[in-house]
């Protein structure tokens, strides 16, 4: 039994990580082939850093993700506070269901409907081509919002509702009470929401594809466009770099998280 479960575990890990391992190994391949490893080389990494268009798309992706994260975190937190404060239970549950829709809706539908709306509104104002960086940003904020709200709402519910009242009692205006007492209390939820928004935006292809303008290309869109011709191993190099950056971030957040939790308990 024990050996069987061990073998099973190994198989699962193999299944999960073999593709990444292959990508990783072949990013250091001398030749362009995906079947023969003809020798170690950093050639594709050099090529990657010479490819201005790809680097620009990486910068675009990061910029878009950062902006979408900031906007959706601010709007989402405010929305969660608003929903939590609602007196009518019916309105409260309706609103939180409605805000979840972009999350449960298939990306393809969200993407097409957003595109149609942007084009429609653009035509209305007489624009020939309304899709741009800004429409993409709006779309990303739209689908990131529910993740932020979903993280912040439970934190607000857990919080003793007398806390902001106590702050006001001691002389805070309602706004000051929010920043001095409520926000520190719900901070873990806000941060998790922000990280989720960032990764969702970074990861997104379908919605971006439908709402992107001509001049602005994100990395997933660029890679997709490349597959129409050939994907060169410099993409493996890029994927490897991204993989390790994310791994490093994960390790850092794990290492810094634990003592924090001990302090609270």
């Amino acid at each position, binding site marked *: 039994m024990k050996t069987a479960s061990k073998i099973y575990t190994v198989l699962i890990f193999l299944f999960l990580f073999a593709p990444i391992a292959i990508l990783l190994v072949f990013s250091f391949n001398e030749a362009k082939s995906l079947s023969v490893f003809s020798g170690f080389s950093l050639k594709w990494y050099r090529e990657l850093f010479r490819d201005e268009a790809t680097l620009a798309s990486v910068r675009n992706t990061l910029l878009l993700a950062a902006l979408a994260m900031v906007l959706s975190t601010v709007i989402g937190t405010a929305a969660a506070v608003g929903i939590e404060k609602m007196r009518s239970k019916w309105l409260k549950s309706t609103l939180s269901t409605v805000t979840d829709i972009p999350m449960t809706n298939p990306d393809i539908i969200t993407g097409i409907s957003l595109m149609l709306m942007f084009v429609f509104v653009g035509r209305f104002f007489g624009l020939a081509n309304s899709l741009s960086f800004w429409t993409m940003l709006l779309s990303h904020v739209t689908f990131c919002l529910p993740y932020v709200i979903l993280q912040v709402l439970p934190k607000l519910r857990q919080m*003793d509702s*007398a*806390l902001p*009242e*106590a*702050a*006001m*009692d*001691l*002389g*805070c*205006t*309602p706004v*000051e009470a929010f920043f*001095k*007492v409520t926000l*520190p*209390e719900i901070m873990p939820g806000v941060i998790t929401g922000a990280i989720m928004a960032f990764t969702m935006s970074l990861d997104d292809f379908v919605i971006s594809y439908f709402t992107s303008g001509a001049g602005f290309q994100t990395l997933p869109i660029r890679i997709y466009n490349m597959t129409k011709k050939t994907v060169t191993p410099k993409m493996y190099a890029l994927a490897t770099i991204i993989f390790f950056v994310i791994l490093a971030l994960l390790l850092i957040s794990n290492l810094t998280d634990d003592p924090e939790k001990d*302090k*609270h308990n």
Partner: protein
Amino acid sequence: MAKELIRLKDARMDFDGETILDNINLYINDKEFLTLLGPSGCGKTTTLRIIGGFLVPTSGDVIFDGVRINDVPPHKRQVNTVFQKYALFPHLNVYENVAFGLKIPKTGEDGKKIRLSKDEIDSRVREMLEVVSLKGFEHRSVTSLSGGQQQRVAIARALVNRPKVLLLDEPLGALDLRLRKDMQQELRRIQQEMGITFIYVTHDQEEALSMSDTVVVMDRGRIQQIGTPEDIYNEPKNAFVADFIGESNIVDGIMRDDCVVEIFNRKFKCLDKGFQKDEAVDVVIRPEDVDIVPEAEGQLKGTVTQVTFKGMQYDIIVDFYGFKWLIQTTDFCPVDSKIGIKIDPDGFHIMKKSEYSGMFGDYSSYSEEYDEISDAESEEEE
């Protein structure tokens, strides 16, 4: 001469079509210790929240020092609150919690912002921590403190702002009995030392009687009686107050004349006057005002049905013509024994009939009533 500080004028509170407060009229004097007492849902916490500024009455006025403050938000009121579950800020330590209110610039009477210096804040926080005996706890996390210590931080955090009025919402509800008794003494001492008006909310009648200058008994969103603890106990206005404050036997009676009341078809001398001839009344007899005598000498005769040893005294239930009385006595009377009782004229208290007549005062279900009391205490009022 006592000076009036707060007045509620016809304060009414409706919520979702339900009346929570039904035209409350109340005034509170400067430096007074006033307690709002009543069962869960009687409107006492709502009254406190109206004074604190967290609720605006549906109609009626809140007057503070002669000025109508209905629309003044909490942060601009000269009152501070000690919340039911303390509501300490978990991300701040003891010192920072207490200093919280002092660090916020206040608008002075000339409209200028007043910001306290660091030294001033420091000395006031330390002074306050000493008052509540928490010296040396400055840098402790508030979540690591015991209930009693958290309670003290909450009191210090409110009092350090030198409010004119301190509002306390069942502040001792979460503490065990012994600690509660200590904190009662402590609160009374702090109140007298600092000369601040306290408005205290509780459902614990003993707490109310032992701490307050004035007790306001509330039920069903209405004030049932306002008075000193002695007044409330000795001269309850209706059957609800008599039953809620201490133990009472309440029986139907008829005033045959000034100072003559008839119960169980027998006339007794009492001290109450001013009723109409033959007016139906409620008669309160406190369990400790009944003397047990041999059956032959008794004004009334009954059978003991239940005996409970209470340490200082026995609580016995006696059946008089089908009506069960609670009597407290130091003499042991076995179950099923026949006894007589005597009541002095000052042992009777006569009340006008009210909506509460006939609802209280019979001890047929004595033990069940005890269960109800302990249930009520475990249920926190939201």
